[in-house]
């Protein structure tokens, strides 16, 4: 980056120097030649004046280093002057040439005409050479100066470019250092935006936002693992202690059978725990776990509720259903089943005998699934925490009984994966109402069109 910025600055400065240099050089070159040519023309004119006369051949002494030849219209060298009014001469050619003695000269060929009609038509041609020494000297000096100044300017520009790029990149390098210091143990660190240039601040802020999200997710994950291992410890301890105690002395078969039975119970509760943990982990992955499938929502809800009722020993809680028929969804059926089952199971758990549970589904501008109960309700300060993994309303219920506090967090994870949201209402002491809002894009295509109409 530093190198690129330096190179960019250098290329800019250098190309500007070269363009300006070339411009100045050729501008000066053209100007000086024009100046030289003008002086040659005026000297040639002076010559024609000098040649003009009464026929005597006057040979004017040219300035040092100048030479000239005068020819008439047919090309013969003449010494005869031209008389009459002279129109401004026409320059036929202008060249630099080198003489035998090595000196460089500027040679102009001029046609000189008279206005007089007595003179045969045609012009008198004057070839006039003048030394280019002064011109060459001036141009060389100019070139030398320009090269010198160019070199100094180039070197200065290079130094400035390197310095500027370093200075302008310093905050970026500092930021890079800060980012480099962040790892999974130091996710609470943030990039300081205080001395960052304005252009870099949005980037730093986005990075900080990302860090915040990562930190939250990482901490959630850490807590999840801690809670999970915590809940695994007790059944593992039970299993180990039962086995260790049993092995401490010889036992008869019935005693051993009793031990094995107890171990089996513990192992089953461990399996349930692991199943629930896996469910939780899977429910959180946003990628579709299965192919979308068409199904009637009310039918799936009926199935889930019925199988939950069957698995409970005594039907002491009344289950009311208010299911809008004919709602056809096309999505992952497993997630929907899990949402319904976990919500209703949760309602069963917190509704005492003699109470009721109401399951409702309807379509308004969203698909709304409502599960309410006449249970113990949730105190306002706990309302926000019920979706946390391992949160149990009544704290130390044993994980052995299968109360892991994962149900609602699984619900939330599935709902999020389907693009919906969860709402809870629990007016003091009157049970709880869970409302799941799912987007209408989960409806089967035909259904969606109906809604659109």
């Amino acid at each position, binding site marked *: 980056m530093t190198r690129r910025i330096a190179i960019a600055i250098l290329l800019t400065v250098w190309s500007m120097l070269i363009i300006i240099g070339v411009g100045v050089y050729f501008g000066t070159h053209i100007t000086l030649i024009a100046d030289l040519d003008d002086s040659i023309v005026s000297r040639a004119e002076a010559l024609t004046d000098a040649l003009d006369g009464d026929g005597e051949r006057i040979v004017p002494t040219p300035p040092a280093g100048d030479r000239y030849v005068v020819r008439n219209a047919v090309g013969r060298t003449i010494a005869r002057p031209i008389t009459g009014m002279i129109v401004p001469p026409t320059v036929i050619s202008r060249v630099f040439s080198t003489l035998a003695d090595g000196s460089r000269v500027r040679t102009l060929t001029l046609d000189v005409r008279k206005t007089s009609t007595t003179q045969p038509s045609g012009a008198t041609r004057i070839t006039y050479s003048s030394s280019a020494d002064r011109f060459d000297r001036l141009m060389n000096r100019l070139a030398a100066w320009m090269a010198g100044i160019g070199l100094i300017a180039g070197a200065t520009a290079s130094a400035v470019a390197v310095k500027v790029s370093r200075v302008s990149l310093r905050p970026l390098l500092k930021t890079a250092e800060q980012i480099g210091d962040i790892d999974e143990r130091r996710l609470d660190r943030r990039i300081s935006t205080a001395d960052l240039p304005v252009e870099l601040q949005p980037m730093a802020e986005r990075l900080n936002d990302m860090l915040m999200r990562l930190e939250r997710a990482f901490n959630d994950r850490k807590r999840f693992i801690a809670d999970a291992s915590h809940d695994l410890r007790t059944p593992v*301890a039970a299993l*180990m*202690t*039962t086995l260790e*105690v049993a092995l401490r*002395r010889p036992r008869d078969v019935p005693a051993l059978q009793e031990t094995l039975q107890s*171990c089996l119970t513990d192992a089953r509760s461990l399996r349930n725990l692991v199943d629930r943990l896996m469910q939780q982990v899977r429910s959180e992955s946003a990628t579709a776990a299965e192919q979308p499938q068409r199904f009637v929502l009310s039918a799936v809800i009926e199935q889930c509720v019925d199988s939950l009722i069957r698995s409970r020993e005594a039907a002491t809680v009344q289950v009311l259903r208010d299911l809008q028929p004919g709602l056809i969804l096309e999505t992952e059926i497993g997630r929907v089943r899990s949402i319904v089952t976990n919500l209703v199971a949760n309602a069963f758990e917190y509704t005492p005998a003699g109470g009721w549970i109401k399951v409702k589904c309807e379509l308004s501008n969203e698909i709304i699934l409502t599960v309410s109960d006449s249970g113990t309700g949730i105190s306002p300060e706990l309302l926000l925490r019920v979706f946390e993994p391992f949160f149990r309303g009544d704290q130390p219920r*044993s994980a052995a009984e299968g109360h892991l506090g994962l149900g609602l967090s699984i619900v939330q994870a599935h709902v999020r994966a389907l693009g919906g949201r969860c709402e809870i209402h629990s007016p003091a002491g009157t049970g709880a109402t869970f409302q799941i809002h799912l987007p209408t894009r989960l409806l089967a295509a035909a259904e969606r069109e109906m809604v659109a109409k």
Partner: protein
Amino acid sequence: MRILVAEDHPSLAQSIAKGLREEGFVVDLTMDGSEAEHMAKAASYDCMVLDIMLPGIEGWEVLSRMRAAENRTPVLMLTALDAVSDRVKDLNLGADDYLVKPFAFEELVARIRVLTRRKHGKISASLIIGDLEIDTVGKTVHRRGQEIQLTAKEFALLQYLAMRQGEVVSRTDIWEHLYDSEDENSSNVVDVYIGYLRNKVDKPFGTKSIQTRRGHGYVLTADTSRGVTA
């Protein structure tokens, strides 16, 4: 040694109780925090094994209430939380020791032994009263280099008296520390076992280390009066 185990996981609680009983401890079991608090108040335990997460009142709350009521029973906390901060919290609340689940049962027993020993001011696993040597780990008793065979109950009684050597220990005390509700309920049992113990520990050596204090109870002392064995 009477031990209160407060743990709400049914099979863990049962296994600990069973294992400790087989080690010669008398074990009372509860799965509820408030019950644990009441039991700790009602009886004098030599050690308490307390789970942190209990229904009713949580374990650490039971502990802090006990300590607030000046109950000095040694408490070993069972915890599933193994963060240093959690363990420090337990110890600061007055726990004497803690074990992180899952633990080795052997370690639990060893730690309970340390706590009960310390409660009675003993630092070593073997108790020496005069020429009587009791190894509380190996569960052996020697007198003058001679091994004395004792049943589990007799050993527990001797150990308890030895822990409180020189003190008069009442029948009720002995009853409370050595028998649980499953045992036959009669204070006469204590007298019977004292008789058995004397027959094995004193009689063959002509000593009188176990003495009766009428109306008070029994005391174990270092009887150096070498009775002449006839």
